[in-house]
């Protein structure tokens, strides 16, 4: 018998609706495992009574870690944490065995219980090897946010932050806010509401605006950053808890020679009847992107002023959401043609041009054009911001956000958020959403009360480190560095626990809490029916 003290709590809803299959055999199976002190069926663990029962069960059993056999860890892990804390255990001293989405729901009724046994065994073997990670909950030291930007996006973010009661500093590199002319407003009401936001921000008591100021460096940790500002009167420090980057993007239609597109009304007098609008984006590879609203509006304008003009828009996809849908319909009714392309088109000639591309619907196309325009969105100061805030750029040269759907506005550095512009995001309503997303992430960090540091984090065993710099180069969060002792160190505050460095390390000097090397191997063995 081992000396492990593990409890297994099986939620009565773990197998789906009660009675989906009999949980009692599962309970006695779990109870029979080595090191398991107790296995209990808990009536609906996410209810208040269920939680109380779970805490009571844990306390009485004297277990120091436990397995929850229930639904996906994605749904209720926060609850299991509070159960652990209430039972006097470490808040992360548990493992979830997902017997619902992992077994009961996806396998035939007679196979579900058998699979559940394996899943529970895997979780028990994993939690057996659990060790206490560095983990603290800390209050953010500073409840204010710095917004770096010079225009409407910065104003929108600042308004949202100030509305939550956070002190907000807007850091504007130029002499004042840029006029919102590069945005697309569908109607006058939108333009007016944008101007209203800018006025509101200028007068808000919680918002301070620093003109002629640039950020020189950003040190510290989430909740407690120190920015060094470079202003006309000399450098000074600014404390803030979070940073929102709102660089002003630039969305333009330009000719192949780099000149700005002629006004739509001048096209005829310039003798331009055949126009092709290409999507912007990287000029190499297959990275052809979307047709943007800017191009759509231009096409609509030109087509409605000059009947008989021939306009084609090329792009990987057409995104005309919300009020842009009407613009697209209008353009289509007036004869604008849209071509889907999957590879970069080639342009030959010096005007008139020939544009060659492959449209999956009509095959290979070769189109003559008097004018070829490129519709691109660029963020002029992205490179500078990236080096000041130590953030990576993506393949388009924009500030990289981690995952636009699951983690909107987040950059690789926690506490630093970005309003990002994808092609098509220059519409006012979209910009407002991006600014709102970044602002809400920042306020979530600062207003939640306590911030978590640690948990699933990697740690270097200094004796084994051969200083190959693999982790330093690989870490997407710049959390790995060579420390004072000349060995790799992973910063607990920056590590986000992806574990890439652990598997990369040739000396096997790095391990990660919660997903340790021994834990994964134990799980593998359990999954394949091998004994411990």
């Amino acid at each position: 018998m081992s000396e492990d003290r593990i409890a297994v709590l099986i939620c009565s809803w773990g197998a789906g609706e009660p009675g989906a299959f009999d949980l009692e055999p599962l309970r006695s199976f779990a109870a029979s495992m080595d090191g398991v002190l107790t296995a209990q069926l808990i009536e609906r663990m996410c209810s208040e009574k269920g939680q109380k029962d779970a805490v009571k069960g844990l306390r009485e059993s004297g277990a120091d870690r436990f397995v929850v056999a229930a639904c996906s860890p994605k749904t209720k892990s926060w609850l299991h944490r509070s159960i652990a804390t209430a039972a006097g255990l470490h808040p992360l001293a548990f493992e979830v065995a997902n017997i619902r989405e992992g077994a009961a729901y996806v396998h035939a009724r007679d196979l579900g219980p058998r699979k559940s046994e394996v899943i529970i065994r895997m979780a028990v073997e994993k939690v057996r090897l659990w060790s206490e990670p560095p983990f603290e909950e800390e209050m953010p030291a500073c409840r204010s946010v710095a917004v770096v930007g010079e225009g409407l996006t910065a104003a929108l973010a600042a308004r949202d932050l100030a509305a939550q009661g956070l002190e907000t500093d807007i850091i504007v590199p130029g002499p004042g806010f840029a006029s919102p002319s590069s945005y697309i407003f569908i109607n006058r009401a939108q333009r007016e509401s944008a101007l209203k936001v800018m006025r509101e921000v200028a007068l808000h008591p919680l918002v301070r605006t620093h003109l002629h100021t640039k950020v020189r460096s950003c040190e510290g940790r989430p909740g407690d950053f120190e920015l060094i500002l470079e202003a006309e009167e000399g450098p000074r420090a600014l404390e803030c808890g979070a940073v929102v980057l709102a660089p002003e993007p630039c969305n333009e239609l330009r000719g192949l020679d780099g000149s700005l597109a002629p006004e739509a009304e001048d096209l005829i007098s310039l003798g331009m009847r055949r126009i092709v609008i290409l999507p912007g984006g990287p000029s190499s590879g297959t990275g052809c992107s979307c047709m943007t609203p800017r191009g759509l509006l231009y096409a609509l304008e030109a087509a409605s002023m000059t009947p008989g003009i021939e306009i084609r828009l090329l792009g990987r996809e057409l995104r005309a959401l919300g009020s842009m849908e009407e613009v697209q319909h209008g353009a289509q009714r007036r004869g604008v043609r849209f071509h889907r392309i999957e590879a970069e088109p080639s342009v030959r000639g010096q005007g008139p041009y020939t544009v060659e591309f492959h449209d999956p619907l009509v095959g290979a196309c070769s189109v003559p054009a008097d004018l070829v325009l490129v519709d691109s969105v660029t963020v002029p100061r992205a490179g500078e911001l990236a080096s000041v805030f130590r953030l990576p750029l993506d393949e388009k040269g924009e500030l990289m956000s981690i995952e636009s759907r699951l983690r909107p506005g987040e950059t690789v550095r926690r506490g630093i958020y970005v309003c990002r512009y994808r092609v098509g995001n220059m519409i006012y309503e979209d910009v407002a959403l991006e600014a709102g997303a970044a602002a809400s992430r920042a306020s979530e960090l600062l207003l939640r009360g306590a911030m978590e540091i640690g948990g699933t984090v990697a740690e270097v065993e200094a004796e084994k480190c051969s200083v190959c710099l693999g982790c330093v180069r690989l870490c997407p969060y710049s959390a790995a560095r060579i420390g004072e002792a000349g060995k790799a160190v992973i910063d607990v505050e920056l590590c986000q626990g992806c574990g890439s460095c652990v598997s990369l390390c040739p000396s096997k000097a790095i391990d990660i809490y919660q997903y340790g090397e021994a834990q994964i191997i134990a799980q593998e063995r359990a999954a394949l029916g091998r004994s411990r």
Partner: protein
Amino acid sequence: MRVVGFICGHGAEGAFDQAGERRIQYSPDVMLIMMPCAGRVDVLHILRAFREGADAAFVGCCLEGNCHHVYGNIEARKRVEQAQGILESVGLGARRLEIFHLASNQAWKVPQLTEEMLSRVQELGPNPLGARA
């Protein structure tokens, strides 16, 4: 048959969870091991699975360019390719191992990919190391 799936905690775990919520059935021979990110998957984990008798293994991760941890899935692809080379040279066959890219709303891919791995096992036969107790 025993198939081990290393599942990243974002796209792939989301897809498998959603398959569960939608009651999309797949074979119980597929055993899932949750990873914080596909970048956590080591060549050694994969080879270990075969040594312990798995007939096939796969890595499930986010769509390329959409990794929750920036480029964990690219790292995973490199490691899968390395492990495939090793499996081929020891005679087990590179086709016993595959990497699948899943967004968390692509539950429909789950039965497809599990069937794919099971049919490969049927084609290649059981893992000869599996018989070793």
